[in-house]
């Protein structure tokens, strides 16, 4: 059974993942959340964790006058972590777009770690493509790159994303994946739905930000993020339509 360990501002460590013995994944969930024009970062809003049962964790966070959220992390699958959010707009502003920006860092998972993106994959119009074949745009942080996703507003329209100054003109399917060094296993992050995708070569981390759509003052919305840790190559995972 996979093990989650809350770790303060870092959010949590995930270990004892059956397909990746000895590996440890860093989860920053959420790394930022709220109004896409004024998201609240994990460094200033540390979630409070509780564990209702062995395979379920819950985290809550609240910034009075701005937002409140509840996040459940379901570990009941042996090869998937299902993260679900309910986000409430406690401000007096209507939010055009709300999001939860999530980080899955593979730097402590040797079999997965890929700072060159040679084993990174995503999808375009339903077809898997190597990330190295996807256009990117240079910024002062060339290790990071953001991508718009199908069905979401163009990432250039999201102030949160524009701050990274690194959005290319390409629309991707809502997932990023990294194959293991031996090509037999796959880690993936999938937005339900995705607001945008993001990867960072500095830490070998992948992100599928969750999109809540617009939220009016006093209203709530839901979104999610699925993480897969599969004992299967990417092609097999896609064939099974796991996402």
């Amino acid at each position, binding site marked *: 059974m996979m093990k989650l360990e809350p770790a303060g501002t870092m959010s949590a460590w995930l270990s004892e993942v059956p397909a990746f013995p000895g590996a440890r994944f860093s989860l920053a969930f959420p790394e930022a959340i709220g109004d896409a024009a004024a998201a609240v970062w994990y460094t200033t809003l540390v979630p409070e964790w509780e564990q209702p049962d062995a395979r379920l964790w819950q985290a809550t966070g609240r910034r009075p006058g701005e937002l409140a959220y509840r996040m459940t992390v379901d570990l009941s699958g042996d090869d998937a972590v299902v993260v679900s959010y309910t986000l409430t707009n406690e401000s007096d502003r209507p939010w055009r777009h709300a999001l939860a920006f999530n980080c899955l860092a593979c730097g402590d998972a040797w079999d997965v770690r890929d700072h060159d993106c040679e084993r990174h994959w995503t999808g375009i119009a339903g077809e898997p493509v190597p990330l190295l074949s996807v256009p990117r745009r240079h910024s002062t942080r060339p290790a990071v790159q953001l991508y718009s996703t199908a069905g979401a507003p163009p990432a250039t329209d999201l102030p949160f994303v524009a701050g990274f100054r690194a959005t290319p003109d390409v629309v991707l399917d809502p997932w990023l994946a990294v194959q293991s060094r031996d090509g037999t296993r796959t880690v993936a992050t999938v937005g339900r739905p995705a607001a945008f995708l993001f990867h960072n070569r*500095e830490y070998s981390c992948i992100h599928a930000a969750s999109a809540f759509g617009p939220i009016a003052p006093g209203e709530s919305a839901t979104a999610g993020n699925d993480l897969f840790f599969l004992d299967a190559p990417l092609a097999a995972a896609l064939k099974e339509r796991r996402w």
Partner: protein
Amino acid sequence: MPSKLELDLVRIPPGTARTGTLSTQVDELAERFGLHPSWFDGEVPGARVELPGYDIGRTPVTNEQWACFVADGGGEAPGWWQGSAPPPDLADHPVTHVSLHDAHAFAAWAGVRLPSAAEWERAARGDDRRLFPWGDEFAPSSAHYGALGTAPAGSRPAGASPFGVLDLSGNVAEWTADQPDPATAIVKGGSWLTTAPVNLRVAAVGQSGWALNRTDYIGFRVARSS
């Protein structure tokens, strides 16, 4: 463990640094290494930078050299040392887990400085625009890459640049003094962790990032004006 810092510096004569990648090279490089051409955007259009003479470290700064800094009260031991000295078998390996600011502090203590990216590239390329310090063809035995950790500094003599500078490709990626903005810095050289030869090229900048980062694959070398 020596208590006195000894630096091995290589003299680089005045000359022209040919930095980055020419726009005319991008399509060929993209085809050769299997990347979309936009992955080279940070390297183009290339430049020619006139430089006075300077000295540069023959290798990256080692754990042993960093230990002198720690022993003198100037710096902190990287957390993985588990003490004020590195594990003996790693004393001659490049120091890692140091931020750009840590590297600047070491250089100031030692009476030197970090090289600019242009100085780093001139030390690696000499008077031409070669892809790798040893030439245009990738030579696996010339760089420590795709490994499980660092190697002794300077242990790949076949990877020497025209000036005899070592480890410019692989072993540890290296901070330079160039900061595109106050929070970020240019990182050069690829590392033991690099698996793609394209990222071991002299012009590559794709691993550049937060100046505050302390990672297991970024170190630095020093330079001195003359």
